[in-house]
């Protein structure tokens, strides 16, 4: 049948063009992988609860209380005593100033002295380590107080960690899904530069001189792009899981739906940009601006909630925010397609796709009447 023969040749053409276009490989495969590896290497290492604080201990006037505290503090596993032995207060202050240690703890100077002094660097005053040390010492002092008063604690905290499997979610999972969403969105938008290039070279016009089915040509392009995106998902997931230890709990039906709708929506946005870009440079300019805005405002690298309040409404209208969310839901939390909240987000994303597609089609139609050469 001619229809099938035509589709086969068109698809082969798209496949060959993608395969032979070095830029497609760089931006579609190499770039996201490098970006992900860099981000994961920077942020993932400290995320596995390996909290450690380096402290100096000052015990200038050893006494019974200070000796007892010294012994107990040296048993706290996350505290590393820099010198092993107590140092003088002067030495300790110097070490803090030079940031050789996170903090110095000055032990009570007499038996009846009941206060512990924590010395920290001004720069680190609000830092996580300082906060954690303060909390730790508070707890320590509190326990000591109870013990001194001979009282038993009445309330205590019990911990229970909840995950969908037996594993905790980490920044790696968060970043991996964000990167996958970003790559697919970028592929969808930037891929449409071909259309501008084809129009500029007169290829669209050339095809219109033949009985070629232009809808089929567009469809073959889309199929190629989807396949390319599947390769991106698989490659990034493999790297994330096997190299950085990401944990994925995938709801496949949900993932496929979110993926297809997302890829199409971002294609539509790229199609819209292509409809008013006369040159590939103009297209790339617009696409880059939009890409950068979305990249940092859509919760790819950091949760949207951590952004300043005034920026959050911007995030809440961007389509990538919802695509990232959708992929996270279906790839990490195993959310099914019957989840209403999932559809609210996807709905906003589809709205973007539908509106930009209609605007793009309208602009293309208008141009083909007015501008012919």
């Amino acid at each position, binding site marked *: 049948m*001619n229809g099938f023969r035509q589709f086969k040749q068109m698809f082969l*053409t798209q496949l060959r063009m993608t395969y*032979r276009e070095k830029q497609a490989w760089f931006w579609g495969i190499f770039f996201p992988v490098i970006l992900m590896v860099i981000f994961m290497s920077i942020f993932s290492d400290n995320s596995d609860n390996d909290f450690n604080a380096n402290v100096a201990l000052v015990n200038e006037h050893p006494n019974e209380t200070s000796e007892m505290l010294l012994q107990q503090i040296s048993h706290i596993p996350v505290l590393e005593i820099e010198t092993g032995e107590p140092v003088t207060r002067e030495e300790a202050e110097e070490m803090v100033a030079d940031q050789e240690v996170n903090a110095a703890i000055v032990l009570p100077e007499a038996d009846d002295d009941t206060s512990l002094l924590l010395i920290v660097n001004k720069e680190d005053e609000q830092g996580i380590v300082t906060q954690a040390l303060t909390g730790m010492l508070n707890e320590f002092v509190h326990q000591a107080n109870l013990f001194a008063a001979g009282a038993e604690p009445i309330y205590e905290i019990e911990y229970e960690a909840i995950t969908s499997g037996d594993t905790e979610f980490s920044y790696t999972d968060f970043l991996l899904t964000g990167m996958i969403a970003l790559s697919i969105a970028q592929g969808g938008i930037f891929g449409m530069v071909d259309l501008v290039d084809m129009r500029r070279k007169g*290829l669209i*016009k050339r095809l219109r*001189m033949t009985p070629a089915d232009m809808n089929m040509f567009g469809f073959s392009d889309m199929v190629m792009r989807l396949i390319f995106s599947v390769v991106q998902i698989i490659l990034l997931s493999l790297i994330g899981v096997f190299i950085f230890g990401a944990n994925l709990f995938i709801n496949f039906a949900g993932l496929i739906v979110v993926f297809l709708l997302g890829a199409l929506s971002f294609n539509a946005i790229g199609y819209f940009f292509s409809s008013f870009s006369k040159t590939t440079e103009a297209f790339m300019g617009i696409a880059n601006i939009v890409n950068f805005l979305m990249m940092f405002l859509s919760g790819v690298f950091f949760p949207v909630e951590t952004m300043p309040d005034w920026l959050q409404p911007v995030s809440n209208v961007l389509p990538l925010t919802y695509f990232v969310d959708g992929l996270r839901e279906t790839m990490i939390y195993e959310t099914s397609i019957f989840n209403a909240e999932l559809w609210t987000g996807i709905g906003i994303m589809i709205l973007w796709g539908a509106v930009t597609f209609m605007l793009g089609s309208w602009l293309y139609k208008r141009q083909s009447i007015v501008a012919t050469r």
Partner: protein
Amino acid sequence: MSVLEVKHLKKSFGPVRAVEDISFSVTAGEIFTIIGPNGAGKTTTLEMIEGLVPPDEGEITFGEMDWRKNAAAIKKKIGVQPQSSAMFDLLTPEENLNLFASFYDRSRSAEDILQLVNLTDHRKKHVKKLSGGQRQRLAIGLAMISDPEIIFLDEPTTGLDPQARRNIWDIVLQLKELGKTTILTTHYMEEAEKLSDRVCIVDQGKVISIDTPAALIDQLTEEREVHLIFLDGADAAESAALFSDDLGSVSRTERDGSSLTIWTAHPEDTLYQLFSYTKERNFQVEQVSIREMSLEDVFIAFTGKEWRD
């Protein structure tokens, strides 16, 4: 038998009137050339005929068919090589041909076409690595893939070196041997004269004249320009000029140093008499030439404008 009929085409782009009034009819099997300077409206005319641009006014019919009713059928009947020679640069000539072949129910094999346009040796090269001439040949090949009855070639040799241009001419003449109707545009007069069965001269969106190259030149003038250079210098030329002026067939003469130009309706008689005269006087003639009239002269005569390539 007419395969294409164009009547009173008009097209404006905003305030620019690209085509004002163009009519012609093309017969099966001929090479019909539309010639004119840049901006004369050749490409716009062709694009209207190819169905890419709707005309503001006028009629285009392929036999019984027109674009409004029979677009799909016309597309199967025609093959187009556009001026931009657009094709997929990252594909090879063979892959481009196979892709284009898939658009048609009936097509020739890529192999045949590669042979026809002499690209068999370059079949596996990416198109972006082809030379200008090879690219242009492939563009003609793509127009040929569906084995169309009518082929449109829009300035196929523009920007090519003389050898590459000659290669294209060979292909065009081969198309004629295959019985195809070819509609060609060019702004090279020599090309139009060499290839065309009939020439349609256009300027500023209007048809100036349509006929065979020979008839166009003939209708222009019966006078020929004869050019002589004398070895004996200005005196001999002057003397010969005076003699020629008295001959009935000579309309005027022009002398510049030792060279003499004579305009005559009967170059052979004039030269016979002139040579008898020079022999008598023992003048030595170093060089004689009769200038052929060309389409360029036809263009100048019709428009009063200099021809510029």
